[in-house]
C-alpha cells in the first residue's frame, strides 16, 4: 500500500529535465572518443599478442559499446528500469556463452574431420543412399580415443 505507482510519483516538471542532459558538446566528445578507440583497436590488431588480440579487441569494443549506450542512448540519464532491462539482455547472453564454453572447452572426443563416404555396409531398407551416409573408420575412431 505504501508504494505509490510511478505514474503518480512523477513530478510535473520531470519532462523538462529531459532537455538538460546531453547536448551537442557531449555527443561530439563521445563521437571523438569512439573514433579514437576505433583507431586504437585497428592499430592493436596489427601486432601479434596471441590470445591477447581477442581480449584487446573485445575489451575496446565493450568500452565503445558502453559509450554508445550511456551517451547516445541516454542510459546515463534514463530511468533505472531501462538500464536493468539493457543489462539483463547482456547478462543472459553472457550466461548462454559461459555455459556453452563450459561444455565445448571440456570436450575432447571429436572424430577426425576427414570423414569420407565408404559404402561398406548394406543399408537398411529406406535409408539414405550410400553416397550420403558417412562412414567413419572405426579404427581411426579408436585411435582418436586413445589419444585424448
Amino acid at each position, binding site marked *: 500500500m505504501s*508504494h*505509490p*505507482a*510511478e505514474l*503518480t510519483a512523477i513530478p510535473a516538471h520531470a519532462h523538462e529535465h529531459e532537455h538538460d542532459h546531453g547536448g551537442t558538446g557531449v555527443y561530439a566528445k563521445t563521437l571523438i572518443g569512439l573514433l579514437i578507440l576505433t583507431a586504437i583497436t585497428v592499430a592493436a590488431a596489427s601486432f601479434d599478442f596471441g590470445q591477447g588480440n581477442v581480449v584487446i579487441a573485445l575489451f575496446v569494443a565493450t568500452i565503445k559499446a558502453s559509450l554508445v549506450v550511456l551517451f547516445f542512448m541516454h542510459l546515463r540519464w534514463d530511468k533505472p528500469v531501462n538500464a536493468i532491462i539493457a543489462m*539483463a539482455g547482456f547478462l543472459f547472453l553472457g550466461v548462454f556463452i559461459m*555455459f556453452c564454453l*563450459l561444455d*565445448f572447452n571440456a570436450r575432447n572426443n571429436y572424430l577426425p574431420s576427414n570423414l569420407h563416404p565408404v559404402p561398406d555396409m548394406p543399408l537398411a531398407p529406406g535409408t539414405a543412399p550410400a553416397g550420403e551416409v558417412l562412414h567413419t573408420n572405426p579404427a581411426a575412431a579408436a585411435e582418436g580415443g586413445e589419444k585424448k
Partner: protein
Amino acid sequence: MDQGIATSPHIGDRPRPKKNYLNETKGFWSWAATLDHKRIGIMYLVGVLTSFLMGGIFALLVRLTLLTPSHKLFGKVLLTAEQYNRVFTLHGAIMVFLFIIPAIPASLGNFVLPLMLGAKDVAFPRLNLFSFYLWLTGAIMAIAAMVFGAVDTGWTFYTPYSTTTDGPVTLMTAAVFVLGFSSIFTGLNFIATVHKLRAPGMGWFDLPLFIWGIYATAIIQVLATPVLGITLVLLMLERSFGIGIFDPRIGGDPVLFQHFFWFYSHPAVYIMILPGMAIISELIPTFSQKTIFGYRAIAYSSVSLALVSFIVWGHHMFVAGQSQLATVVFSALTFLVAIPSGVKMFNWMLTMHKGNIKLDTPMLYAISFLTMFAIGGLTGIFLGTLATDVHLTDTYFVVAHFHYVMVGSTVTAFIGGLHYWWPKMTGRMYSEAWGRVGCALWNIGFNMTFLTQFFLGSKGMPRRYYNYLDQFQPLHAFSTVGSWILGLGLFITAAYLLASLRKPMDAPDNPWNGTTLEWKTSSPPIMHNFEEQPVLEREPYDYRPVLVAK
C-alpha cells in the same frame, strides 16, 4: 450460487450495465480489428482451445495406436510407423507452441492482467493485436505444414535428423519462429504494462500474485524466445544452404543445437508452469477466504524460478554428449529449482490451514494441481539426480514427468482459472454439478494415463517408440483407457461451459468473493474496464472482518 457473501467486504452489487465489452460494438471487424485486451484475450482463448482440441485428438490417436503391439483396431492398422512419428510430433509441437505457451498468458492473462492492475488496457494495444495475428499466422503455417505431409522430427527438431529428414521441416520451423515472436511481444507488452499501468496506490507488493507469475513469465518470454528464433533460423539455413553449424557431415555440431534449443526450451517449461502457479496463487486464498500465506515468498519464488530456469538447461543433455564437467554443473544447478517450487507448495498449504474452504470447481482444480504438481516435481528429483537420470532419461519416465508438470499442473491450473474467470469473461455461471464431474474424470483419467507411464519408463520403455515389447502391453493398455476417461472429462467440461453461454447473463460481479480489482467491475466488464479509475484501498487477499464494518 452461494450464501453469506452479502456480508462480505468485497461484494459490490450494482445493476448490470447494459453495455459491456461483448456487446458494445458488433460485427466481424469489431472483433478482428479490436484493440481491446479483453476481446483479444477471448480470441486467443478460442484459438488456444482449438489447438488444445487438435493436439488432444493427436494424443488420443497416439494412445490408441499403442493399445496393442500390433497397432490394430478392428483388424486394421491404425497408424504406420511413419504416420505415428508424424502424429506424435504434431501432438508435441501443437501442444507446446500453439497451446500451452500462449494458453495462460495470452488468453487469461490478456483478459485479466489489465483488470487486476486497474488499467484500461495493456501498454501497447496494437502490438497486442499484432501478436495475436502473429500467433494466427504461425498456427496457419503449422497447419499448412501438416497438410503438406507433416514433419517427423519430434517437437525438439534435433539435428542432424531434422536437417536430413524429408517433409516440410522448414515450413514447420518457420511457423514456430513466428509463434515465438508472438510470444515475445506478449511478454514485452505485459512487462511494460505491469511497470507503468498500475492503479494509483498499487505498489509492487500490492500486485495480485497472478501478476507476479505472469510478470516472471514475461521475463522469460522476452529474454529466452529470441534464442529460439535464431536457433530455428540456423536450422532452416542448415537445411537449405548447409551452413555447417549443426550437421556433422559438413562440420557442424549436433550437441550445439541442443544447447541452443534448450537455452530456450528449458525456460519455456517455466513459461508454461509459472502462469499455472500464478492462477493457483489466486484460487487458493480466494476459495479459502483467507489471506495468502507468505505473499513475498511466493512473489520472489516466481521471479527466482524464472531466473534459475536460465541456468539449468543442460539437464536435458546428461547423456547427450556434453562434457562431463557441464553435466555435473548443470545437475547441481538443477536442484536449485526445487527450492522455490517447494516454497510455493508450503505457502499454498499453509494458506488453506484454518481457512474457510469452499470446494467449488476452481478450488477442486487447485487441489488437483497441488497433488499433480507434487508428483511432477518429486519425479523431477529422479531426473535431476545424475545416476538415476542415466537410466530414466529418454524413457516414458520423462514423458510421464513432463506431462505431470505441463498437463497435470499447467493445464489443470488453466482449466481452474478458466472456471474462476468464466463468470467475469462471459457474465454467466456454469453448472457446478457438472463441473465437479468433469474435474473428477480429469483427475482419474490423468493419473491413470500418466502414473502408469512412470512404471513403463523405469522398466526401460524408451519414448517415441512405435513398436514395443509384449511385456509392456498391459501397462500401455491401462494408460490408453485412462486417456479415454481424460478425454471424456474434457468433453463434459467443454459441453457444460458452452451450454452456459446459451443462458442469459446471471453471474454476479464477484461470485467468489475475490479481493482483486477484476471483481470490482461488472461481469462482464464494460469496454474500458472500470466506470471510474479504481484506487487500491486494500491489499489483495485481505479477508479481515474488521474492515467490513468500515
